[in-house]
Each structure stands twice: as structure tokens, then as C-alpha cells.
């Protein structure tokens, strides 16, 4: 079974493994939500998942399409208002890890979800930041999940929507931030972690079957590789089954309203 998994499945599974049972996790919609719930349904049953709609310790049976589907509220320990969520819980420093996706990323894991082109006359108007600008600096650390690609992994971002390690990798320390910023960037071919000194995102693990050449070809900057790049363990049968049945339940639920 594990030989037939897709790169996207490997990405979600690798992302889920990064989460710990003790984590209090602020969950972004889409790929982060799939990874976080996969973690909850496999190795991290006690993980606390929080969505910005105000739902705390939610345990959805199907993945939400939006950040505020009723499923999230129905299965939550409690639901608070959105101002309370951002003030007491996020800004209050109660979140250990924020899980984000994005449209574009640079080598220091800064993210753009705002515009491509000039802000006033954009080529492409993207949705904007939502909760991400404050998630990025107020959570203990940040995990990012994004598929590699020349258009999404870019040398220079047209707009910084949320800060990773800053334009030169030195801004976080210079600003006196105590949160760690992006500590993992999980892609469909590999996992990056920041270099201890420069904070440049560095390939530490290649997924089964993926090559360095593929990573280089799909990255808009020349990516650095760690001295000891390991192989990401292939998905287990349990991980794949759990992920696929979660997606099947979700698809059926969203089609049937």
C-alpha cells in the first residue's frame, strides 16, 4: 500500500508527524487542517486543535470546508468569540504551534497570500492575510505546509503577508521576538528546517522516491541541503488508511448538503 501513495499524501502525513500529543495548535484551513486532524486520529489523540472561528479543542469527524463549519463548533470543548480568540488565546501566548499554508514563500519562510504584482494594481489579487500575520508571531513556533513549485517558492516575495524569519533571516531577533517562527516547512518532496545560524530554510529530509534534482527543479531559489539529509519514512498503512477515509468522509459530506 505504501508504494502507491501520492506526493500530496506524503506531504500531509509528514506534516501530521511533526505535531505532538501535547501541542495546542492553531489550525489554518485546507492542507494544515488535514494534517492536524490526521495527527489527532493517529499518534496525537490528545492534541488541542483551535480554529480562528473560536472553536477550542475541536474534534471534527469530517474536515471543514471553511474555518467556521458547524462541525467544528459541534465537536468543540467550547466556542469563544473571535475577538476573544485573537486577544486571550493567540496574543495571550496560549498556542504552542501555528500551522499555516500560503500562496508564495521565500527562503526565510516569509509568506505571501496578498497580491502578485503591485499592491495598487495587482496582477493577481489573492485573499489576504486573515489570521496569519498575528499567528506567525504569537505562536510558540510555526509549521508550514506547501507543495513545491517555481511559482510558489520564489526568490523574492512581491508582498510579505506574514513574517517567517524576515527578509534577511535576522529580523526576528532584531525585533526582540521570543517566538521561534517557522521551524518546519513540509512539502510534497521534502522537509525544510531553518539553519541554526542563518535561518535559511534547509532541506533536512527527502521523501521516499524524491530526489535532490526534483527539489532543485521545483524551487525558485537554489535550496540548501543539510549535511545529513535523511529519508522521510514512507507512510504506514494506518496513516494512509486514516487519511484516505477522512478525505472520503469529507467529500461525501460536502457534496451532500
Amino acid at each position: 500500500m505504501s508504494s502507491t501513495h501520492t506526493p500530496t499524501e506524503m506531504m500531509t502525513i509528514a506534516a501530521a508527524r511533526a505535531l505532538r500529543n501535547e501541542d495546542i495548535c492553531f489550525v489554518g484551513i485546507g492542507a494544515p487542517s488535514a494534517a492536524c486532524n490526521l495527527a489527532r486520529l493517529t499518534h496525537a489523540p490528545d492534541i488541542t486543535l483551535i480554529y480562528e472561528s473560536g472553536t477550542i479543542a475541536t474534534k471534527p469527524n469530517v474536515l471543514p470546508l471553511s474555518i467556521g463549519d458547524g462541525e467544528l463548533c459541534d465537536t468543540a470543548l467550547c466556542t469563544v468569540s473571535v475577538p476573544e480568540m485573537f486577544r486571550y488565546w493567540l496574543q495571550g501566548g496560549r498556542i504552542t504551534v501555528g500551522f499555516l499554508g500560503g500562496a508564495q514563500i521565500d527562503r526565510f519562510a516569509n509568506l505571501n497570500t496578498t497580491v502578485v504584482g503591485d499592491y495598487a494594481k495587482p496582477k493577481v489579487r489573492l485573499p489576504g492575510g486573515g489570521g496569519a500575520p498575528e499567528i506567525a508571531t504569537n505562536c510558540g513556533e510555526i509549521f508550514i505546509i506547501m507543495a513545491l513549485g517555481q511559482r510558489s517558492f520564489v526568490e523574492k516575495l512581491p508582498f510579505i503577508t506574514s513574517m517567517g524569519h524576515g527578509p534577511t533571516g535576522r529580523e526576528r531577533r532584531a525585533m526582540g521576538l521570543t517566538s521561534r517562527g517557522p521551524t518546519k516547512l513540509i512539502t510534497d518532496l521534502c522537509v525544510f528546517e531553518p539553519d541554526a545560524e542563518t535561518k535559511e530554510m534547509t532541506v533536512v529530509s527527502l521523501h521516499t522516491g524524491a530526489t535532490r534534482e526534483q527539489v532543485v527543479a521545483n524551487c525558485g531559489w537554489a535550496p540548501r541541503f543539510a549535511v545529513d539529509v535523511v529519508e522521510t519514512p514512507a507512510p504506514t498503512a494506518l496513516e494512509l488508511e486514516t487519511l484516505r477515509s477522512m478525505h472520503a468522509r469529507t467529500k461525501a459530506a460536502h457534496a451532500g448538503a
Partner: protein
Amino acid sequence: MARILTLSEAVEETIRDGDSVAMEGFTHLIPFAAAHETIRQGRKDLSLIRMTPDLIYDQMIGMGCARKLTFSWGGNPGVGSAHRIRDAVENAWPRPLELEEHSHAAMANAYEAGAANLPFAVFRGYIGVDLPRVNPSIRSVVCPYTGEKLATVPALRPDATVIHAPRADRAGNVLIEGIVGVQKEAVLAARRTLVTVEEIVDDLGAPSVNSVVLPSWTVGAIAVVPGGAHPAYAHGYYKRDNSFYIAWDKVSRERETFLAWMKENVLDKRPEAFAVHGRRASR
């Protein structure tokens, strides 16, 4: 005291041309029926405010009701782009749209400041990002106690706030349940308010003494519109119509299909058309 009116009367007296209008509801309880009535009444030059413009503002902006949008995340949640908003921003169709863009934390804080009758909100945010460069209303203060630099945004004080709620009682007290979003703050921050509800009941039936209740004297107009949040949802009444949100991508992608849909489903319809989506809570 809140007055119970028809939706048509309530929109007529709550929303005026040129108003700043907040139609809130964080994914849940989005007041679609009130927005459709606003479109039918031909309101224009509105300055629309909403954290997540969602399909409700995609429709209003595509129909030319707005000159400005204040927002923090403008897509079709979980699906993709808000195509009508993009067309307005990228191509000025059907008219140019001024943007005032924030983060969620900023908008939530700004509503809370409005409700608290403060001139601005202060929070730890916008660190290391580009939005303050393109939005001059994002500024900062230095904390007088610690010296920390903190972000500020002006309080939101809409001319009119419109929300949808599960129910009101006959005296006009309103109960909000489920994902409560920023509706309480948005109502208390506004000059005029309109609440559409699934039903009006004899006993509000608040499940807890700490339930989110807007007392009658904080609400302007109430209109009963069962199903009035569709395709969003009303906790305990009906679920979010996720298939509608997915289908909207195709409807809204081209101007012609969008306009045809709006004519058939909004301009040629009445508020009663929402009733087919409403289901009574099993209490």
C-alpha cells in the same frame, strides 16, 4: 427598543446610500437575505466592512453596491477566489473598489474598540509585514509602562450593522449561539442595527445565564427571515450549504453567468424565498 418589521421596511430604514455597513457573521449566521434585499432596493456607494467578505459581499460588489471594502480575508472559504471582488479590484468592474485591508486580529480588535467607545484598538500585531506600508490607518503607540511598540487601528463604528441570529423573543431580545464571531461587538459599535432571525418565540430559551444575548434596547430593527443565512448556516437550524459554496466558483467566474444568477435568484425573488432553506430547531 427593537421594532419588529418586514425585511423590506427594516432595510429601508437601516441602510442609506453612502453608509458604512458591516454585515457580520464569521462563516456562521451570515445575513444573506438582508444583503439580497439591500441589492433589490438599489443601495449604492456603500462602504462595506466585513472580516471575511465571503459570497455575501462578492454578490453586493458584483452588483455595484459598494465603493469601498474594509476586510481581512477575501476569498471563497475552502474553494478559492472571490471572483467578483477580484474583478472589481483588478478590472474596476462594475465600478472601482477602494480597499482598506487588515488582519483578522486588527478587525476583531477594531470592532471591540468600537463597542467599548474607544477611538482606537491596540494589540501586538503587524510585526514584520507589508500591510502597514499600504494601509495608512495602521499605526503604532509606545506603551507608557513598558516602552513596547504596539500596533493600533481606528475603532470600527459602522453607520449600520446587519447580523442574522437564531431567534428573538417578542420583546425584541436576541439570542446568538454557536460560532458567535464578532456580531455582538459589531452591533454594539454601530449607530443603526438590523437583526434578521430564524424565528420569534415567546420564551428566548437562552441555554445558559451566560448566553450571548443582545437586549432589545441595543437593537434597532428585527425581521423574521427563516433560512435567511443560506448558504451559510444557523446552528441548530440548518447546516452550511458547502455544495453551494463549491458551485459558486463556476457561477461567479464570468460576469454573464453571475448577472443571470443574480437576476433569477435575487432581483426576481422576495425574502420569503429563503424559507425553503430554514428548518425549525429541534428543541
